[in-house]
């Protein structure tokens, strides 16, 4: 019975059945810390877009977290135990109504087990790791582009101050220190157009090419 009800309840949560309004639904959230994470995410988006973070305050959503703990860890076991005691004192062992409510809530409280297992499974799954790899790759690509721009600006300034560059120009001539990636001159098309690139031996599939036009209002232009 418990197995069947927990499975149905789990499906109810995971498939997001919308039988009751959200405001009431919050009361039956078996995993209250996820609500805090979602409130913090809304704040983070506000901060990102320049709005003032609201922070945590006493709202219905925040208060529902208390009711989650109260219902699943206190009210349910209390009603179930009280009903159990009452039934024992009855001669026919009949269960009072609150035994059923307490029992239903207790079964609901067991859903933290499959919900958290699924939560942890998705967190450590290959899909999640693959997403994180893509995030890291994208971040690496941004860093490469940023460093290439740094080299591009230095090259533009070098061209201006040295009155152009000759065919033997190399990135090392810029005397830039602490470069993390490999930069090279792709071509010197004229004294007003230089093409440079960045690559990373550890991630050969990442790379960018940039045009440098020191006398143009648009000094740098990324080709890819």
């Amino acid at each position, binding site marked *: 019975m418990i197995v069947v009800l927990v499975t149905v309840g789990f499906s109810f949560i995971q498939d997001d059945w919308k039988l009751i309004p959200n405001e009431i639904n919050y009361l039956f959230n078996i995993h209250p810390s996820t609500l805090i994470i979602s409130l913090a995410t809304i704040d983070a988006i506000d901060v990102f877009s320049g709005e003032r973070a609201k922070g945590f305050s006493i709202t219905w959503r925040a208060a529902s977290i208390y009711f989650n703990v109260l219902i699943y860890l206190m009210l349910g076991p209390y009603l179930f135990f009280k009903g159990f005691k009452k039934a024992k004192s009855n001669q026919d062992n009949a269960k009072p109504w609150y035994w059923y409510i307490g029992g239903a809530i207790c079964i609901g409280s067991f859903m933290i087990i499959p919900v958290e297992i699924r939560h942890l499974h998705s967190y450590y799954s290959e899909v999640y790791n693959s997403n994180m790899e893509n995030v890291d790759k994208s971040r690496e690509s941004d860093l490469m582009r940023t460093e290439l*721009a740094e080299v591009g600006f230095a090259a533009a300034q070098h061209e201006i101050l040295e009155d152009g560059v000759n065919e033997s120009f190399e990135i090392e001539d810029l005397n830039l220190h602490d470069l993390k990636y490999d930069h090279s001159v792709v071509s010197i098309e004229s004294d007003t157009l230089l093409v440079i690139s960045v690559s990373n031996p550890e991630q050969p599939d990442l790379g960018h090419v940039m045009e440098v036009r020191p006398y143009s209002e648009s*000094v740098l232009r990324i080709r890819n």
Partner: protein
Amino acid sequence: MERETKLFFGGMILAALGFFIPLYFGKIWLGLFLAILIAVIFLGRLLSLSEKEFESKVAYRIVYGLVVLVVLFHAIAFAHDYGRKDYQKDLLLEIRKTIDSGITQADVREKLIYVLGQYHQNDRESIVATFRDQMPEHLGDDGVYLSDFDLRKAGGDSSMANIDDDHINHFYEIDAEADEIKVIVVTDISLGSDPEFENYDGQKGRFEMVFTLNEEGVSYEVLN
């Protein structure tokens, strides 16, 4: 009143105090921790009260085991989510800082390089005079540097209609004697490394960088 009823109401009030007092001060994680802790103590006490009601030791041990399992999974869920509580905020602020820094480099540094190019290419006598001739629209009143965003916004650019502010503040200082221009950039959102840093515009702890243009070239420094 039965002991379990007293225990329930006592636990309910204590959990409410433990949750809502920290929540009032914005400490929702502490509130949830205290509420769960009080609920666990309540469950332990309820279990000890119920021991004599069970007819068999095995049934009691099964119930005891189930309660431990539920508490354990609540603890895992709390610890797991608490460990990720700042992940979204940190990630979004890092992205915001990269964007702010990138926009500033493209906006300010590119213009200063262009002015440097014009100064050398046309054998001008003064960097400051070259800047005033080439980019007069950027030099606002009271040392406020008008960025491309500010100029496009003021010019009624329709693509800016839904953006009130880019939350990047620009200022300039001209040292005519040294023939040098400084452009100072302070962001409203991105945080610098020192939270106590006094920013140029009176803010505290924000990301700040300064670009310097003189006849030797363009340099920049991240001040915070």
